[in-house]
């Protein structure tokens, strides 16, 4: 990965921020949103999040984790448990990170 390539990626991401946030008010003309699109829009964000998160949690160097003794599994489980208990994202991050640091420093997982 070169610096120039990374900068091109970032310029594109910045444009995407502007285009998605202004999508329906940048164009003069009003476009009606078809039903199938509105429904698809509901699933695309959660699909993208799940697709990015799952490998980060259960994979190591391109393979399924060879051991269950990995702090990430327990940190993710703790985060999810906290979320479904309290419905709150900040606490999810704190609970998961606390488990992460405890296992990494305490047990070396």
């Amino acid at each position, binding site marked *: *990965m070169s*610096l120039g390539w*990374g*900068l*091109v*990626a*970032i310029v*594109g*991401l*910045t444009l*995407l*921020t*502007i285009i*998605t*946030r*202004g*999508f*329906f*008010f*940048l164009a*003069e003309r*009003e476009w009606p*949103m078809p039903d199938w699109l509105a*429904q*698809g*829009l*509901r*699933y*695309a*964000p*959660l*699909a*993208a*999040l*799940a*697709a*990015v*998160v*799952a*490998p980060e*949690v*259960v*994979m190591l160097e*391109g393979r*399924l984790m060879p051991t269950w003794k990995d*702090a*990430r599994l327990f940190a*993710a489980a703790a*985060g*999810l448990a906290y*979320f*479904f208990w309290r419905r709150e*994202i*900040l606490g*999810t991050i704190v609970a*998961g*990170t606390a488990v*992460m*640091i405890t296992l*990494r420093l305490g047990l070396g997982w």
Partner: protein
Amino acid sequence: MSGIAVGIGAWGLVTGMAMAQSGMGLPLALAMSLFVFAGSAQLATMPLIASGAPLWVVWATAACVNLRFVIFSASWRPYLIGLPFRQRLRIAYFTADLNYVMFMRRFPDPRPDARQLPYFWGGSLTNWGSWQLSSLSGIALADAIPAHWGIGFAGTLALLGLLASLLTTPAAWMAAVLAGTAAVAAYALPLKLNIVVAIAAAVAIGLLLERARPDLAARRR
């Protein structure tokens, strides 16, 4: 308001730390923080950028994560469409989640009003400033914390919480489980295409369930 400030602060801090520990390097982490200004898209594309995925996969992933803004933009339209294009362009960059929620609460009536623009810019610039402050602090802080503590994982946890908050129907659960499984199963595909395959499969199953089993796709009230 103090709750909101803590929220932005924590989210920015986590994003900053995750960027600094993702392996993308300090100049890119700084540029990303200062320009992109979309925390969840930044967190989601970070591992892709660090592993050198093709640009279109990076951009497609960010576009999907950002789709909620497309939906918000439809509600912004009646307030903003009378303004000149350049001004709308500037405004578009700043219409983040929080501004949306605050603005719509303050001006529930979808009509332009002279008090709206000052309110918008006051809120937006405060939001942008606090976001940058906390995100840059996160980048600086991550340098001081050893990588083996696994602090960078806080970014993944933030995305996990965001994902969990979207799982409001059985159909949403099924689509998410399918996306996660497909992304892992197809991991060996080149060019990070596993992400694309996973998104396509999950959106397809979501659309299918909306038609075949509307009971699973309906939000329980």
